[in-house]
């Protein structure tokens, strides 16, 4: 509620105006489960007429932004709040495994008995990428090092002290080739976004940021179903977002790309077309993810350094907005006017891409 109140105050919109609500809170530390939407409405004291609890993992809130825009355009709602919060550090009950697949039944009966952890599923992508394209652990580490640099000035970031490639390589092995510093932080946290029509936004407290493009795709769950070339649903969500916005890659000033693990944004860079298939290691190595590069990315420090309560999508939207307002708390890209926000859900199971403009 603190997040919703803060976002509404920022917009200059009263809670009583809110008639749309989007939440995705099916995971344990989010506390909601299947009734999350009605519980949330009850807790906030609102009765939304448009609501969406689409939950495809971390990118769900980017999906909500797309759905909210469609709902507002269709007249289903005037003011939609998208909200997220989770407390994995505080959570007082026995913590279930992070594994995304709950039961060894249905398709899961052929995978869960072997004990694939969530991290190990990303590790499979990383190992294959290294085997196919010669990507190195040092290149993976460069992603973590770069985003830590961006977190240095962010007072809200979990970790701000600089790290080196050697630090990453020397950190605890978790699931080869991924080490502890290849993995996102675990933090409590939350965030909220207020969406309304461009017309209504004219009277808001702050200069609005526009959702100019959006695309999504949902593809699979089981590891056995991954694309043989490691492409992910981002190959579908990305082009749709670019086409809707009517812009090209060179128009993007800043990007927020979900970084659950170091391999995560690397595959996204390829799928979204910022580099060729298999070339993300070199792209990262060449310093393109920071100021002076082609695509300054995760300017708040991302999930690897700033925060990651479980589903980070809301924070990619929030940092995208902050960049376009010139208020990035970590690294601010000067005069940023177009931001790309991209997230995945599960282990590259779903994807959502948004283009934000001012």
């Amino acid at each position, binding site marked *: 509620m603190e997040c919703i109140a803060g976002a509404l105050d920022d917009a200059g919109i009263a809670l009583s105006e809110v008639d749309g609500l989007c939440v995705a809170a099916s995971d344990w530390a989010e506390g909601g489960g299947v009734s999350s939407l009605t519980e949330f409405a009850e807790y906030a004291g609102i009765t939304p007429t448009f609501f969406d609890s689409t939950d495809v993992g971390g990118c769900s809130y980017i999906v909500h932004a797309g759905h909210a825009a469609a709902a507002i355009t269709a007249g289903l709602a005037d003011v939609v709040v998208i909200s997220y919060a989770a407390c994995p550090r505080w959570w007082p009950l026995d913590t279930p495994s992070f594994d995304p697949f709950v039961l060894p039944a249905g398709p899961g009966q052929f995978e869960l008995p072997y*004990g694939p952890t969530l991290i190990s599923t990303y590790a499979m992508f990383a190992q294959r990428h290294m085997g196919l394209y010669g990507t190195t652990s040092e290149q993976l580490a460069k992603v973590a090092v770069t985003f830590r640099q961006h977190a240095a000035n962010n007072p809200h970031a979990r970790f701000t002290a600089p790290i080196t490639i050697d630090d990453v390589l020397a950190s605890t092995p978790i699931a080869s080739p*991924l080490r502890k510093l290849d993995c996102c932080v675990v933090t409590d946290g939350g965030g909220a976004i207020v969406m309304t029509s461009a017309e209504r936004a004219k009277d808001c407290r702050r200069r609005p940021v526009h959702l100019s493009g959006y695309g999504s795709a949902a593809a699979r769950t089981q590891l056995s179903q991954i694309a043989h070339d490691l492409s992910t649903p981002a190959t579908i969500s990305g082009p749709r977002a670019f086409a809707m916005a009517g812009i090209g890659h060179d128009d993007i000033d800043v990007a927020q790309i979900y970084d659950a693990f170091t391999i995560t944004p690397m595959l996204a860079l390829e799928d979204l077309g910022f580099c060729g298939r298999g070339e993300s290691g070199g792209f990262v190595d060449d310093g393109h993810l920071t100021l002076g590069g082609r695509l300054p990315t995760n300017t708040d420090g991302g999930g690897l350094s700033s925060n990651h309560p479980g589903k980070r999508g809301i924070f990619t939207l929030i940092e995208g907005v902050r960049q376009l307002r010139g208020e990035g708390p970590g690294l601010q890209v000067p005069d940023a006017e177009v931001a790309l926000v991209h997230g995945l859900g599960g282990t590259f199971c779903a994807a959502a891409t948004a283009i934000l403009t001012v």
Partner: protein
Amino acid sequence: MTKGMSPVTDVTSDPFWEGVRAGRLMIQRCPVTGKHQWYPRAHSIHAVGASPEWVEASGHGTIFSFTTIQRGMSAFETPYTCVLVMLEEGVLVLSRLEAEPGADIRVGMPVEVFFGTVAGTPDLPLFRIREERP
């Protein structure tokens, strides 16, 4: 004491598990296109409407990817290596790779199936490096 996760089987998967008990790796094939599919479904993903047929796989494949898990779920003793195998029939399957500690494992290596348990489960298909025969 570790406790594994035994598969919850069903009518669609029964022929597969019967095969495992007989030491055979069964997968499905589309009767229309001749393409294989994994995991078992009641329909062909290559020709929806067609019922897939069960065929025995060769049990040979190559390592598509792998990961040695050092920190994992409490149900499993670490370290262990999960593997994605590209079967000769062109489908990916997840399994365990049984290999000596410190073994040189690389993407693309040939592997072969065998059957065994994981932390108390019934027999499952497992894989090991296949020695190249002269």
